[in-house]
């Protein structure tokens, strides 16, 4: 593992977290607006929306680090006809531009909610295309460790899991900021926060389930593969990287599963707001570390077919 591969780990994790956050925010905002009106929904999500921008920008800047010749990086979108890498870069840049435009309009309340909605939908769609393209970049016929359904499933699971927990943490931080002078949980905002965190807890347990099913299936698939490259990848996973993979699964179980359940319980019973916040932060940090470890093994344990 070298600087170049760490740059790819950072790029894919942060870009996926940004897409997931955007999607989750859209869903939460939709239900919050239906329940308590547009104004309360905006109060809940506007600051969280602005937090996505820097993360996304950071991911794009970091992606340049893995290039040997960054001066030519503008050329990375010149082979859209056949290269998924070109499509990935184009959708990453488009997501940044359209998502950024929406964030600006939402922040400044430019144009009507309907127009903003259309732009948000467009950005969300591009975000999904981005994660889909990202998956296809790795599904090379000469890379058995990557060329399976496990890649898109894992990428989308990471996208949504980091998305829900990052936005949960952002909501908690936003609420703490809004309510600095007015502790307690009597207002609509706090009710919204608790309702959101309950759903976030449920979503993370479901996504955890997907990850816990796919990870062993992926290893079994590799071990059953007939090519020498597939066997070599499986040997790497069972050998040196097995411990990291196991740590990752334990951490994601702890963060999304155990803490998720506690979070659900806390968000259900009033008067536990402080613990609720701490649990959300802890779940996010633990799952983030787990996903980085998972991505580390993804890059470390692939063996190409051939010589």
């Amino acid at each position, binding site marked *: 593992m070298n600087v*170049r591969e760490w740059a790819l780990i950072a790029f894919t994790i942060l870009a996926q977290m940004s897409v997931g956050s955007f999607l989750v925010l859209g869903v939460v905002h939709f239900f919050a607006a239906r329940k308590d009106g547009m104004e309360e929904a905006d109060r809940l999500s506007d600051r969280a929306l602005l937090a996505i921008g820097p993360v996304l920008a950071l991911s794009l800047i970091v992606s340049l680090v*893995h*290039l*040997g*010749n*960054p001066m*030519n*990086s503008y*050329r*990375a*979108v*010149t*082979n859209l006809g*056949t*290269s*998924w*890498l*070109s499509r990935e*870069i184009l959708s990453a840049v488009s997501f940044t531009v359209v998502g950024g435009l929406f964030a600006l309009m939402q922040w400044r309340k430019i144009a009507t909610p309907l127009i903003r909605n259309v732009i948000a939908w467009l950005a969300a769609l591009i975000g999904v295309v981005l994660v889909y393209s990202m998956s296809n*970049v790795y599904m*090379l*016929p*000469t*890379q058995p460790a990557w060329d399976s359904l496990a890649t898109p499933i894992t990428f989308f699971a990471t996208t949504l899991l980091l998305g829900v927990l990052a936005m949960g943490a952002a909501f908690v931080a936003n609420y703490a900021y809004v309510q600095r002078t007015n502790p307690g949980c009597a207002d609509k905002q706090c009710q919204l926060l608790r309702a959101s965190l309950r759903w976030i807890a449920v979503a993370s347990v479901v996504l955890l389930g997907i990850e816990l099913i796919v990870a062993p299936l992926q290893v079994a698939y590799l071990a059953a593969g*007939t*090519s*020498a490259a597939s066997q070599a990848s499986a040997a790497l996973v069972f050998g040196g990287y097995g411990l990291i993979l196991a740590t990752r699964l334990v951490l994601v179980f702890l963060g999304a599963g155990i803490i998720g359940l506690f979070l659900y319980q806390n968000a259900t019973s009033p008067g536990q707001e402080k613990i609720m916040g701490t649990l959300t932060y802890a779940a996010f940090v633990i799952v983030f570390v787990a996903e980085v470890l998972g991505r580390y093994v993804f890059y470390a344990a692939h063996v*190409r*077919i*051939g*010589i």
Partner: protein
Amino acid sequence: MAKQLGFYFDASACSGCKACQVACQDKNDLPHNVTWRRVFHYGGGSWIPDGDVMAPNDVYAYSVSTACMHCEEPLCMEVCPAAAISKRDDGVVLIDQSKCIGCRYCEWACPYGAMRFREDLGVMSKCTFCQDLLAQGQSPACVSACVMRALDFGELDDLRAKYGAGNGIEPLPEASFTKAAVVITPHKDAQMSGTGTGKILNVSEEV
């Protein structure tokens, strides 16, 4: 003009001396760690008890000289995001370093490990089939240098007519992956691609 140039390699004649590789490095002025042509020593076998001693059992070894296979369906060209890799009318696959962004994605794709990163330039490099020598009617440097006459080149159809259709021995991947433009005469102990029981013996030399 030829439709698809290709290399021919006679594994039954190759001694594994690497003169082809050295000639390539010299002709193309490559750094020592950028090898467009590589020679793999492949072997295997085991030991069985024979009375009081252990005797070799089915021990075999042979050498395979490889470079870019100038595939008919080059995966490197398909996946390159910068459209820096192209295929000439004569089938030769070339990389334009002025377009390369140095992402090394082609390196992940090519099953022959033919895409070599130039740390000093920050871009990829690969076998050019010695296009300058070809233009002068000469042979590529590796072919000229082979003391065992184990290398040849030419129009792929002509090579097949002359040497047969063999193209997949270990440790090479199946040629069907990318339609490699190569013809190979197997060594007598050669194993077919995908059925190998041996391993590359000189990994530290040819990474």
